[in-house]
């Protein structure tokens, strides 16, 4: 190891190229491909879903006799039947895609960003900054998540923005820890020392050496955060703390639950449940593949 590293080693890698490498590796994992495929369909439906919806999600469907068309099983006019409030299940279901994806993505980006910033600052600079940040995460880690979310949403009021905010507050802590320990390892690498010796700035080192090498861990964490965010939003909505002005799957289930139709109106309960399971599972499948990437000992030889 006494060789002088060449210029390339000091220059480091761009974030983009290492992200691309990581994605290429990801697509070598069959399960991850399944996950990405499902996710792609979900993203597509999130974009076009509301246009596909045959009715306004809250529009009351009436029968010919002027009564509310409640709890109708699937039929030609309502492919997935109607709710106890005479709403078209299919339309609500299709609107749910966008809500789930928005909550998942926005929360995960926020979580990913905050945990990366905290993790990198803490891990790279260490010392006082590290101490303070780690004590903060210690405290944050002792707060039970769902109960905290329940209290916080009750406090802030049930809106999608607040739910995203609460999810961000909840999940940055785990990510910051994971990323910090990854940064700690990277910081000690020989090429980082060389880059330092060659006069590279902290910013350069973080952007070209540290970040590209922890990008998989960040991806892993962001993927998991999307899943956590969607699950948390679904749980909150299911408990009746969701945003009443949007249709989310958790909310659909809550309405079925609070109107006492959970165990009979399968056409109302199965689509949102199944969509949640598929979406979250596909994220976990992708996350698992990143996990195997980040842990070389798990990789097959």
């Amino acid at each position, binding site marked *: 190891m006494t060789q002088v590293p060449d210029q390339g080693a000091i220059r480091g890698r761009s974030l983009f190229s290492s992200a691309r490498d990581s994605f290429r590796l990801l697509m070598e994992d069959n399960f991850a491909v399944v996950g990405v495929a499902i996710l792609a369909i979900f993203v597509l439906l999130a974009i076009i879903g509301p246009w596909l919806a045959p009715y306004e999600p809250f529009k009351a469907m009436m029968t010919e006799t002027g009564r509310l068309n409640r709890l109708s099983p699937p039929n030609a006019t309502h492919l997935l039947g109607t709710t106890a409030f005479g709403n078209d299940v299919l339309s609500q279901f299709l609107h749910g895609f966008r809500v789930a994806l928005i909550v998942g993505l926005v929360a995960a980006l926020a979580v990913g960003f905050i945990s990366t910033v905290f993790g990198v600052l803490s891990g790279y600079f260490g010392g006082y900054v590290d101490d303070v940040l780690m004590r903060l995460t210690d405290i944050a880690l002792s707060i039970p998540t769902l109960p905290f979310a329940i209290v916080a949403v009750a406090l802030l009021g049930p809106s999608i923005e607040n739910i995203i905010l609460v999810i961000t507050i909840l999940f940055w802590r785990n990510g910051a820890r994971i990323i910090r320990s990854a940064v700690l390892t990277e910081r000690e690498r020989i090429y980082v020392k060389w880059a330092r010796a060659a006069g590279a700035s902290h910013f350069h080192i973080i952007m070209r050496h540290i970040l590209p090498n922890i990008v998989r861990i960040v991806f892993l964490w962001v993927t998991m955060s999307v899943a956590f965010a969607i699950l948390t939003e679904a749980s909150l909505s299911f408990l009746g703390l969701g945003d009443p002005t949007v249709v989310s799957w958790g909310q659909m289930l809550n309405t079925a639950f609070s109107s006492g139709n*959970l*165990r009979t109106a399968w056409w109302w309960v199965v689509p949102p449940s199944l969509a949640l399971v598929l979406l979250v599972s596909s994220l976990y499948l992708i996350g698992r593949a990143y996990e195997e990437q980040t842990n070389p000992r798990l990789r097959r030889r």
Partner: protein
Amino acid sequence: MTTKIRRLAATLSLSTGIAALCAPAMAQDLGEPVPQLQIAYYAADMGPMYEQSARVLSEEWAKLGLSFQMQPVQFSSFISNIMVGGGLEDMAVFTVGADPDRVDPTYWLHDLGACGARRNGAKWCDEAYTEMVKKQRELVKQDERLQLVHEAQKYFHDVAPWWPATNTVYGILWNSDKWDNVTSPAPVAAHEGLVDPWLSAKPKTDDRILDWAHYEDVTTYNPMAEEGAVGWVRFIFDTFAKNNSKGETVPWAAAAWEFTDPQTVKVTLREGMKFHDGEAVTADDAVFTINTVVELQPPAMSSRIANLAGAEKVDDLTFNVKLKAPDASFITTVLTYLFILPEHHWANYDGDKVARDVVADGAVIGSGPFKFKSWRVNETHELETFAEHFHAAEYDGVRRLALGQADAIRSAMLSGTGDIASMVLPVAAMSDLAAQNDHLDFLEIPSHGSMLVWLNNQKAPFTDPAFRKALRVATAKQRAAIEGWLGFAVPAGEGPVPVQLGMWHNSELPEVPFDVDAARKILEDAGYGWDGQGRLHFPKK
């Protein structure tokens, strides 16, 4: 969702907008546009009906060229900020429950409408009206009072500071294979009743315990502190009178009562009553109870006892209740609420009587038709029939199951574990279940619970009577009842007092039929106009 409604309003007004273009009203003849209005309503934790109703109503109002911002508000914030706190921004769509004390018109006329009344969240103040509704309360002669009550309604209806949209329909679902004679407590919601359906029910089988598939726990068996499960605690502690389903107040622990002067009511107790521990119930106990609550002013009781001055014994079965001010509603709201504590269990209690843990002390002793048996927190409450009671039930006991959610209540009713359900499970679901299952029967309880449309009467455009009336004409009561409440509400009658209050309601008020065009006409006549986008503008100053 705001944007969605705005979009809806825009498309709707497109057609009317074209008409408006041809109309003589040109943009330069118009004042400022009417700003977006906020509609507050109970958030979904109170059930989806409010959301749904607010949406349906605003859809129709949007056709007047208005746009709305939907603002779900949690129940408790709604009460403290909007109803009591005076924080109504623009409009509110919300319900007041079918509480038993609201069978008296005072609540509707005075509490929700008089100047300075604490629950006048619509912030309308009219001295003449306030005078009227204060006066009616003091008229202990019923026909005089009735006339003034009707007059006040007329006055209110003409001004239209707010109006009801629907009256809530409650329901009872019960197991008709096992129980007979389950009667309706209308207009009071079933959870507050006592005779109907509870005491009248008759068992058909050997299962002689009535299981009530309920939602939540009872907080305490100390009647001075309980505020949620008042009716349940009155199973154990007798009240002096009851309101029946015809709207009459009938004797219960009291055999008779009369106003000896506007501030004194002479009450005679029923003979031969006993407490659960075998001691006789006397006027001493009643006087002790009344004087104790007057002295302690338990917060949970404050609304009912505010006007009580005290009581004094006349003889073993007779006592006088003194009022601070003449109060005609005393009979319907207070005699049916006050209870009798056994003096021998309470007189020597040194601690804070209001906070007393009566279960731990073994002091859950009243004279009511049921005796306390057991309480498992957040699970079950069990009461036994008190056979010596003058109106003892024909079965052995009643259990209240705290199931916490509609789905479990449904499951309990289907499996036969629950015998009767009266809340949380939406009325529509009750009706469906009864239709689908032979062993279940369903009873509708039309109640005086009302969904109200409130306006901020101190803020434009609601300061303008024409604008208020136009909104009233465009209030889609029928749609709200069907789409918002799934048909388990009825379009409300006119005036502040619900039709369900029987004679108290003034049936001669002119009906206001739903008509969007008529509403637009009212606005137009008052000088309002629409711009090219169909947006409503104030009259030019």
